């Protein structure tokens, strides 16, 4: 989505296209297999879905007060959607400042795929430990059956970058992190950073079939309960 919003922000006066997170998620699945043509009137996306039929899609927005128009065409049948727009709510600003980053690692996503899909769902939280000393990078869950820890050493093949200055142990509600696993599955690399307020920033680098790169950023709040120190 960054590719698209960038173009639109340049011509701020003419366009005020606001896409909510939900829409972006759906569209990004479409965009993975799509050819995009951006014009003054809108964005034309041609999609080839799994059944090998071509569904052409065009999105147009005339401006404030006008509805968002979506045009879908498949096999000669045209569907037109007119979506009434609403006043946008202020998006949550997590105020994540790059200069207050304490720890940062960049991992190859394949190392995390299985982990996230196998996360103990009985555990309410995922605990992330980042430290300049052992265990370096640890993911922990605490469920009814017991706790599990996954350690990634800093010299592991999967670790592309490891910059940890301080030991930080933070817990995040799994329910908040689960939505980001969709981006994880599509991504080739992920960057995990924490700032001085223990807020995480997850950045997923996704490369689509044409080689174009886009990023999905994910922010959430840490769990307020302070964990006991682990040995």
């Amino acid at each position, binding site marked *: 989505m960054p590719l698209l919003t960038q173009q639109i922000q340049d011509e701020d006066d003419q366009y005020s296209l606001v896409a909510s997170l939900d829409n972006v998620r759906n569209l990004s699945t479409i965009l993975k297999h799509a050819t995009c043509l951006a014009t003054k009137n809108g964005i034309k996306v041609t999609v080839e879905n799994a059944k090998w039929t071509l569904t052409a899609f065009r999105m147009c927005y005339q401006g404030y007060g006008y*509805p968002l128009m979506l045009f879908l065409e498949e*096999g*000669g*049948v*045209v*569907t*037109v*959607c*007119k*979506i*009434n727009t609403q006043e946008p709510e202020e998006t949550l600003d997590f105020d994540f400042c790059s200069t207050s980053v304490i720890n940062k690692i960049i991992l190859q996503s394949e190392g995390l795929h299985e982990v996230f899909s196998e996360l103990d769902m009985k555990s309410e939280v995922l605990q992330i430990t980042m430290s300049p000393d052992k265990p370096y990078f640890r993911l922990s869950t605490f469920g009814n059956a017991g706790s599990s820890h996954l350690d990634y050493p800093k010299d592991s093949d999967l670790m592309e970058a490891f910059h940890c200055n301080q030991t930080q142990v933070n817990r995040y509600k799994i329910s908040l992190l689960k939505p980001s696993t969709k981006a994880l599955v599509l991504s080739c690399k992920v960057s995990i950073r924490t700032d001085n307020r223990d807020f995480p920033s997850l950045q997923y680098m996704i490369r689509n079939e044409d080689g174009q790169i886009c990023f999905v950023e994910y922010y959430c709040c840490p769990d307020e309960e302070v964990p006991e120190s682990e040995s």
Partner: protein
Amino acid sequence: MKFRAKIVDGACLNHFTRISNMIAKLAKTCTLRISPDKLNFILCDKLANGGVSMWCELEQENFFNEFQMEGVSAENNEIYLELTSENLSRALKTAQNARALKIKLTNKHFPCLTVSVELLSMSSSSRIVTHDIPIKVIPRKLWKDLQEPVVPDPDVSIYLPVLKTMKSVVEKMKNISNHLVIEANLDGELNLKIETELVCVTTHFKDLGNPPLASESTHQDRNVEHMAEVHVDIRKLLQFLAGQQVNPTKALCNIVNNKMVHFDLLHEDVSLQYFIPALS
């Protein structure tokens, strides 16, 4: 009152089974009318059905190689039975690859339609599976409500698109609203529209073709692009479309502006008429 019939042809049996499956999807309970030449599956427009009515007709000689019936009386040589549609389709499930199917009216503690299926075993000896379907005989005084509906002169008559496509469109629309508008014109265009406070979705079907007009005079001056429309309950339309497992030989849609939509289908040699009234 007597009724016995037999099907031995495999293709006829399969066709009859498919028709029975369709009826089971369209109406939970329906009336079976038996006359010397035809069989009809009828759903009349009672409030309980939400005003929807159905008339399905097949020529008995296209299916049965033996067919004997004796109606209520000589002047009223017909039989009207009420049954649960699913019971018949379930009985016919066992008739796949059957050697013969017999249906007859019986009285086993209560009136039944007995379906006997003769199946060939591995050892080429046959076995018979019998289903007794409970039925209610409908008295003559109620027959007047079960007659073939009069088809009003439509404002627009148009051929339907592939029903599978129409069904998948309507299925998605069902999630947004219960209220659907079907509109069509004499230029081969049919639109399905739903509208809520937040969103308005229209699917356009083009180049569908219109049957030749019944009466040239009434339609001569009319603008060919003018749309006739009807507002219907989307669930009723979906139920009708869900019943059509196979694309029919012929499918026509007749719209009486703001009053009702009439679907006129032909599944090979079996005709089906389905009426959905406009939402009040």
